[in-house]
């Protein structure tokens, strides 16, 4: 009887483990629907915006274990401010120095859940060769399928506020361009 109980418990434990392993999902970010946006204050009264047109990334989620990872690589040469002169300034060594640092990466290793929803991702942002911790707040995490191609996917919007000087981007501080940068990242990702 005891042996039977042990065997049953083990079987159950195995089933749960298997279930958990199966619950690990991998998602690939859809770059054209996941363009990061940044916002800075300019001259003390003006608000400036820009975005990066190209980024790639993978997300893994294990909803049962409430764990996950995020890895996003942003192509800094794809920066756009909707003004070609400003674009050149942003690409220059005063700001993103894209010739030397063509990518910007975010690696998230702590995905925080509230129930079934992802609400936060803690990770490291590497910019200009400097790596610092950043927490992304995640809102509107929702999963479904694409109405046309019927592929399963999830969407969300991540936000964070960073101080660019922490990554050594100090040009035009403090008056001309603010230190504080607001990031907004819409995300759509297909399940593999």
């Amino acid at each position, binding site marked *: 009887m005891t042996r039977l109980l042990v065997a049953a418990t083990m079987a159950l434990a195995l089933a749960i483990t298997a279930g958990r392993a199966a619950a690990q999902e991998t998602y690939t970010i859809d770059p054209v629907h996941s363009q990061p946006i940044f916002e800075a204050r300019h001259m003390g009264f003006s608000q400036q915006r820009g975005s990066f047109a190209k980024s790639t990334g993978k997300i893994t989620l294990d909803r049962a274990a409430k764990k996950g990872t995020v890895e996003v690589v942003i192509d800094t040469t794809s920066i756009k401010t909707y003004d070609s002169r400003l674009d050149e300034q942003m690409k220059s060594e005063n700001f993103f120095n894209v010739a030397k640092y063509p990518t910007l990466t975010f690696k998230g290793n702590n995905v925080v859940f509230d129930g079934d929803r992802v609400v936060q991702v803690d990770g490291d942002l590497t910019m200009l060769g400097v790596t610092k911790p950043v927490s992304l707040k995640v809102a509107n995490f929702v999963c479904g399928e694409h109405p046309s191609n019927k592929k399963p996917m999830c969407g969300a919007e991540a936000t964070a506020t960073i101080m660019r000087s922490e990554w050594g981007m100090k040009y035009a501080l403090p008056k001309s361009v603010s230190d504080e940068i607001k990031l907004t990242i*819409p995300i759509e990702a297909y399940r593999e």
Partner: protein
Amino acid sequence: MKSSSPSRSRHIGNSEAFTAGAAAWLALGFAAAAAAAPVVYRVEPEFTYAEFTVSHIGLSRQRGHFGRTQGTIVLDPEQHSGSIDFVVDATSIDTGWSVRDEFLRGENMFDAAHYPVVRFHSTQLVFDRERLIGVAGELTLRDVTRPVALKVERLECGKEPDGGREGCGAGVATSIKRSDFGMNYAHTLVGDDIDLSFQVTAFRVTP
């Protein structure tokens, strides 16, 4: 002013100080009169962002910009009057993906070949004391004109660093339904509710 004058004279209590006080009031009056004249600002396209946000397949909120804008703002906060004219070049739509840009410029959406200009013209400016808080006006999109109410969420003025031009920055927002303007295509993919957000920087034209 009337209620503060007696208390002021009580505190001061001598005619010399009163004369100085009166001169100060007068100077303030002149300053107010000078400020009361309408001030004309021209929108600086380089520092101005006309953005729309829309729900995509119910999973995310996607944004797009118009790269080319023009506008003139006239403000008279004392008189609670003024006007705002703002024009967006529909062909300058930019969502960071050329395929999508072409789709949006196409006849099913903005039909920019036929309607290259999106226009806003104010009918009334709304002030809270001397602060502009809202703008009622008409938006013309695809040749359809509808009333819209803009909320002024941010309005700050200052000078460019190093003694440059005097200007103001404003954050302005409203929401519309694209179907109200006859833009009815692709409703299963792209939401009907469109949030419009304008981060406008304008420099003073009048001296």
